[in-house]
């Protein structure tokens, strides 16, 4: 019998169905309904801002990243997520710049996929917040026709945006913090409030997250830990000082849903151990409550996650799994 050339590989010779591109593109897929919700509320401005940040990310990855790295889908996720954290009326050149910074400095500078310490999308947003604080805190109102732009999306770079006719409003967190007024829960849950593009439909985000958790493409412990920590801490504080908001308001306002489900769970920048996931989530939850209630900013999700990102290597090291056959489970005769 003649011997043809066969594969000679080390065991195992078969592989499970999950692949890194499949995980990434599935996340992109689950972001589609979230983006559709943003478009439902904010019209063409949502398309412009999210599109610009995504193009910024993808173009930077294509130009400076390793060959073929666009196919893994991670640059697209960063762009979409960054876009969802931005105000609807942001000039698109800023969104583009944010995307370029997110990939260039947030990911490629660290060595590319898998090497970065901080969530690239949030690093991009932090950069924009520092560079253009005014534009990043201008929140248009939901009123007005669907097709109207929510700000000067087409402003020229560095020329200053033209004042447009859109009515600006405030976010529920801003209202709570600076004016002491509360937004009704139903509007929070379905996203009919002012805020960033992804501060909209909590229900949609939770459904998308549930699907990803079932597929094990995100660790359910991280959002669970964040939600429990935020709810418990804020409810305790609310009990002693009823002027502070209650747990439900804290959970459904601001970027907590988007952050907890899609950003904190970024595989690269979150702990690999199960115990670590609980600790990391609790840390984020505590930071969110601290910043929201006592910090200078109305919202603390971004800094909460970035802050805990920095601790991930330490959390991993401190929560290594117990080796089989050690500890009290191992019985030596």
């Amino acid at each position: 019998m003649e011997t043809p050339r066969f594969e000679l590989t080390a065991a195992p010779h078969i592989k499970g169905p999950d692949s890194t591109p499949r995980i990434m593109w599935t996340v992109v897929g689950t972001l589609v309904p979230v983006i559709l919700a943003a478009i439902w509320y904010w019209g063409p401005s949502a398309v412009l801002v999210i599109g610009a940040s995504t193009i910024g990310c993808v173009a930077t990855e294509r130009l400076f990243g390793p060959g073929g790295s666009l196919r893994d889908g991670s640059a697209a996720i960063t762009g979409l997520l960054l876009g969802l954290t931005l105000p609807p009326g942001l000039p698109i050149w800023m969104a583009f710049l944010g995307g370029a910074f997110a990939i260039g400095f947030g990911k490629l500078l660290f060595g590319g996929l898998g090497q970065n310490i901080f969530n690239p999308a949030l690093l991009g947003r932090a950069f924009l917040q520092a560079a253009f604080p005014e534009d990043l805190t201008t929140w248009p109102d939901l009123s007005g026709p669907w097709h109207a732009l929510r700000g000067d999306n087409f402003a020229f770079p560095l020329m200053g945006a033209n004042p447009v006719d859109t009515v600006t409003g405030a976010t529920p967190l801003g209202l709570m913090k600076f004016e002491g007024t509360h937004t009704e829960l139903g509007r929070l849950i379905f996203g009919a409030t002012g805020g960033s593009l992804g501060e909209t439909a909590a229900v949609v985000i939770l459904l998308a997250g549930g699907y990803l958790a079932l597929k094990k493409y995100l660790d359910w412990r991280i959002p669970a830990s964040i939600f429990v920590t935020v709810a418990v801490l804020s409810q305790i504080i609310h009990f002693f000082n009823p002027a502070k908001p209650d747990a439900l308001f804290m959970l459904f306002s601001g970027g907590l849903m988007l952050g907890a489900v899609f950003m904190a769970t970024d595989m690269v920048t979150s702990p690999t151990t199960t115990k670590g996931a609980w600790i990391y989530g609790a840390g984020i939850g505590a930071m969110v409550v601290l910043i929201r209630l006592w910090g200078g900013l109305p919202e603390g999700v971004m800094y909460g996650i970035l802050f805990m990102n920095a601790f991930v290597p330490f959390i991993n090291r401190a929560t290594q799994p117990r080796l089989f056959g050690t500890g009290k489970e191992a019985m030596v005769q």
Partner: protein
Amino acid sequence: MDVLNLFGVTFRHGVHPPDSKSLTEHLPIRRMPFPDRIALPLRQHAGKPARCLVEKGDRVERGDKIAEADGYVSVPIHASAAGTVADIGWWPHPDGSMAETVVIDVQRHSPQIPRPRLVPSWEGLTPDEVRRAVQDGGVVGLGGAAFPTHVKLSPPKDLPIEWLLVNGAECEPYLTTDHRTMVEYPERVHFGIRIMMQCLGVKRAVIGVEMNKPDAIAALERTRPTDIDVTVQPLIVKYPQGAEKMLINVVTGREVPSGKLPMHVGTVVQNVGSIATIAEIFETGLPLIERVVTVTGPGVRRPSNLIVPVGTMLGDVLEFCGGITDDAAEIVFGGPMMGSSQPDMRTPITKGTTGITVLTTREVKPKKTYPCIKCGHCLDACPVFLNPSQLGLLAQAGRYDEMQDYYLQDCMLCGSCSYVCPSNIPLSQMFALSKTALRKQQQAAAAQASAQKSDAEKEGEKVA
């Protein structure tokens, strides 16, 4: 655990590859005709290779001892067919190397009648005589590791054995060797258990069988003897349940301490096929010269369960099974999770070969890999609770010393981490290589230390 859980039990972590056993699980075991030539490597078992007793041109009968055990952890090799020794030399070995092998030209048109009763009958033998007969019969574990069985039957006196665990998990995808043995020869399995229990002096035996083999569980229940304490424990299907440490944990709830052996938690684990073989040698009087092999996979034209003379070459077995398909891409000895790919059609079936799995271009692993995205799936898969992600990063950096701090030595190379890795990083392979590299480093360090010591002694002498 005294009451068995009929709904099945299992261990923590592990993976769920498709079991792919439907190709052969209902096919009765057939006997393959004798090939024209057989190749018997002297190293077919864990431990020291056997010492050759024949010369080129010698005439051998079926069952004749052609190589003797070299020391305690070693077993003899017997001719699996009558014929003439054609050559003694280097020959392709299933482990990928060339190994010293006795090649026998099988006598044509011979009825292949074996010599009568080479192994004594079991009745009236003392445990020591049983152990000697098992060693003389060349019996080793047939589950893949090929560890000499008589050594397992001789635990140290200070370690009392409470349980005999019979491994019928067969968690490797595709393979149905143990499955068919349990379905077709359940009495033989029980007879083997009786011999082992008597030899070890244990009172309790549990047969662990995964629940994808209900007919095997039924057959073993139907033939279960009532005068000894033997029970059948159904196991929830999961890989690597057939690993000794996992099976012990599943059945007894105990964890074998890191670096220790099953006997340290009062257990001896033996594979179902090996136990049937113990019974078989006492029944037929023949040493271990043939074994059951599953020939399977989408790349083989006629998947089969076969009794094959030990030493039959890969090409002859495949030819008997109708050859391979045009898209066959990889031939594996054993199953796809822990088996080894074979490049050479002359490679012989040895005592430890559980099956031949032929994979096509559709099943073989993709080549493309991605960077580690720290998803942690490997941590959830590892049955001994290692951190393969971290170990992989250290291996890539060549930091083998640090890998010991992450318990590299406890890795069983089961391949679960590689199987789940979405980035297709060959973790298991990297750990095998790291283990070898680490061993070499340590040997070199030890050699250097002893050289320095002797230099220092010489210096000392000079001064004196």
